[in-house]
């Protein structure tokens, strides 16, 4: 009889009874504290139900509410009773009604027998722990908390504010350094009795009575005064989510719990029949000697991360981040090409060949969504209807990138397209935007339309593009952006292309051996001059030498272009 259990119970009494029987069957005395909030009749029935068990006692009842002194008072009374009435107990284990032993209790006894002087209690100084609720870390020791966090939230908050405003800080009792940690401990008789029989205990009790969540700090702090050997971890597997509530175990966690090698787990869902049947009704010897909850830790910390950070680039029914809080507007990098299809005749198929990316046309064209090979629908059943797309163009883009995770998307964009996403792509760090300014004039140059029409359209497109450029060049833009004027680009197209591909990532780092075919620009300078003569000022193309002798358009070099 080396191990005694102090059990705090407040709900699911039928499950608590099962667990008590389990402890008791292994020869552990149990002292039970039942929350005062449980009504008399229920309490009597509960006492009745375990009356046949030897060495099971009930302690004085206190009213327990989360975050208040009651829980500490309950642990104190029950521990005192345990130490007093069961002199053989060497280790006292604090457990709750929803805790469940996972390994045979004999293994736990052996484990403790091998470490007779060790106190297992998680205890860390407040400065070093990140788990705090409500933004109160050190203040939980320096302010007073007479109001309930759950039921009197308003008063709680106002009183905290009041104390901060008037700097009403409390002094810590002499000699203690605040420590915090999991509420569930396993202490040796020596340490526990030292805490409980300390002549200064009234001072500490008075102090901790007004500390916030004392059940996570009372024993954790005082143990540092007396213990010879603190092992700062809890033998109870208990994970907390970001609100400070314990994660709950269900039937589908069975395999995880089995492999965790932990002695005790909490909190178990009261209706998890399979877990109770498995762990309480049959022996489950585990292989490892030390608890190893690594996998469970990972699952729960992932869950917390999902709740607090979410999946980047996902907008859905329960995640609609405000602007600036997206943790990434899109889920993956993508490339936007502006002016390339205008300058090169077969740019899309060529790009698809040299990069292995998914190359779309003008996704935001007003006529239709130009998906790759002009399919009518695309990943995620996106539709090629332009009205549907423009109904929410931002989400069209985020959906497209989300739906094609794992495959790089490239698309064309330009001033002829609907401009809803102009700012969004500029601000998105995942966007890689390459712009040849003024390239929109090439289709006009090649078209067979009346010049006055062309002039009007050119003016309009130039206005739209310069607006877009000002977004790209603004203070807020975070995309990787390269901008060339048409004239600069035509000077050395392959050099420019290579730099774009280098940006697209290592996978595509392949020197371009084959060049796309550039449209014939003979007479283009004259075309620009004509626009100028009509009173329009085409400036986005850069300086094409004007005059009667237009420059010979460069034929793309067919020789391999070496960069490395």
């Amino acid at each position, binding site marked *: 009889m080396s191990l005694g259990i102090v059990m705090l119970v407040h709900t699911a009494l039928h499950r608590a009874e099962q667990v008590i029987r389990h402890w008791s069957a292994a020869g552990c005395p149990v002292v039970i504290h039942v929350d005062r909030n449980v009504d008399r009749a229920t309490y009597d029935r509960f006492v009745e139900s375990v009356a046949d068990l030897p060495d099971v006692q009930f302690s004085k009842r206190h009213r327990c509410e989360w975050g208040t002194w009651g829980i500490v008072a309950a642990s104190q009374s029950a521990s005192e009773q345990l130490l007093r009435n069961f002199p053989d107990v060497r280790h006292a284990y604090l457990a709750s009604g929803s805790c469940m032993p996972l390994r045979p209790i004999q293994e736990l006894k052996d484990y403790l027998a091998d470490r007779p002087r060790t106190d297992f209690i998680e205890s860390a100084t407040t400065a070093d722990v990140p788990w705090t609720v409500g933004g109160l870390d050190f203040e939980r020791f320096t302010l007073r908390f007479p109001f309930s966090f759950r039921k009197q939230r308003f008063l709680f908050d106002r009183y905290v504010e009041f104390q901060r405003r008037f700097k009403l800080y409390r002094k810590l009792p002499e000699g203690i350094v605040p420590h915090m940690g999991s509420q569930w401990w396993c202490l040796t008789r020596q340490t526990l009795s030292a805490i409980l029989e300390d002549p200064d205990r009234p001072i500490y009790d008075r102090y901790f009575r007004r500390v916030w969540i004392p059940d996570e700090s009372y024993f954790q702090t005082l143990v540092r005064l007396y213990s010879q050997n603190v092992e700062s971890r809890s033998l109870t597997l208990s994970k907390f989510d970001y609100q400070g509530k314990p994660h709950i175990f269900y039937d589908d966690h069975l395999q995880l719990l089995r492999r965790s090698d932990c002695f005790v787990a909490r909190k178990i869902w009261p209706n998890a029949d399979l877990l109770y049947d498995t762990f309480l009704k049959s022996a489950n010897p585990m292989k490892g000697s030390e608890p190893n909850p690594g996998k469970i830790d990972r699952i729960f910390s992932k*869950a917390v991360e999902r709740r607090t950070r979410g999946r980047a680039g996902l907008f859905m029914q329960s995640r609609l981040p405000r602007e600036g809080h997206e943790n990434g507007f899109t889920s993956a990098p993508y490339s936007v090409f502006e002016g390339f299809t205008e300058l090169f005749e077969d740019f899309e198929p060529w790009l698809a060949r040299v990069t292995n990316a998914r190359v779309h046309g003008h996704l935001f064209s007003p006529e239709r969504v130009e998906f790759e090979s002009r399919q009518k629908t695309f990943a995620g059943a996106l539709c090629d209807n332009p009205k549907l797309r423009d109904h929410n163009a931002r989400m069209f883009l985020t959906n497209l990138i989300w739906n094609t995770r794992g495959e790089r998307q490239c698309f064309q964009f330009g001033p002829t397209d609907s401009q809803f996403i102009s700012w969004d792509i500029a601000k998105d760090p995942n966007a890689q935007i390459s712009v040849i300014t003024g390239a929109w004039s090439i289709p006009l140059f090649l078209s067979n339309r009346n010049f006055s029409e062309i002039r009007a359209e050119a003016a309009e497109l130039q206005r739209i593009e310069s607006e877009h450029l000002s977004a790209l060049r603004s203070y807020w833009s975070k995309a990787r952006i390269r901008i060339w004027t048409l004239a600069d680009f035509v000077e050395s197209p392959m050099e420019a292309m290579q730099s774009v591909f280098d940006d697209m990532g290592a996978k595509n780092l392949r020197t371009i051996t084959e060049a796309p075919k550039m449209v014939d620009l003979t007479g283009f300078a004259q075309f620009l001059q004509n626009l100028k003569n009509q009173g329009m000022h085409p400036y986005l193309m850069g300086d094409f030498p004007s005059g009667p002798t237009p420059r010979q358009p460069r034929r793309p070099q067919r020789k391999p272009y070496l960069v490395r």
Partner: protein
Amino acid sequence: MRARRKSRQLREVRNRTDRIRPGDILLFSTLRNEDIRLPYFLKYYRDLGVDHFIMVDNDSTDGGREYLAEQADVSLWTTKGSYRRARFGVDWLNYLQRKYAHGHWTLVVDPDEFFVFPFCDTRPIRALTDWLEASEIRSFSAMLLDMYPKGRIDAVPYQRGQNPLEIASWFDAGNYSISKNHLYYNLWIQGGPRARMFFTKEPWRAPALNKTPLVKWDRRYAYVSSTHMLLPRGLNLVYDEWGGEKASGVLLHTKFLDTFTEKAHEELERGQHYANSHEYKAYAEGLAEHPDLWCKWSENYINWRQLEILGLMSKGNWA
């Protein structure tokens, strides 16, 4: 108030609400001529762990009323009143919820909607409501996900008692658009096959897919428009605005079976649906031209984990 007035239209058929125990999970539903769907519907929700069904029958003529009246866990009301003037059944249900659902977790679904939530294959609905309660969450959202068969929707006839997902097992995975209603704080989700097929000319008219069907009911609460919007408005805040994900589920909407074509014509004649049955008009036209909602990018439904990975629902911090 409005609900009380409309409640006079309700006539009790079988009232078994005295069997409701504290803490029971209740399901509310209105229906009209859905007899063929009822056996599977009841089975599905009984298996999830719903304790009691409170149903309003809107003048069915196919024997569904009689079938429901025989079920031991169903309380049934009937009405000949106008579905549209009772704001699509919301008034009737608000009245009954106010009367019987106070303090209970309630699920409000139609007979063609199947609620899917994280871990629903291994945990009953009570695990979810217990967790929500512990996390102090009062309402839980589940977006409507339109399911459809491959091929013409009338190609495979639905059999009574059959799982409709055996026929309508396809859905659109990622073409939804979301905007926020700043008055009621609820989201406005549109998209899916209906928007893609029937509302390309007027996308803003496409039906709303956001729903909040699971609520810890209080007699002061009320649904405003179907289960899309709730009052008080705080109940509509089922989404996180700071980058995180709250837990959410999905309502698999199995409307598009062979029973649908008939229904679309019938509803059109009755003119009892939203916005002058604009939706049904669009369907009747759309289905005449293209009876196939399937496209090569449609996804075949497997389980909730698939929906989670696709980003249609989330586990949030439930693990």
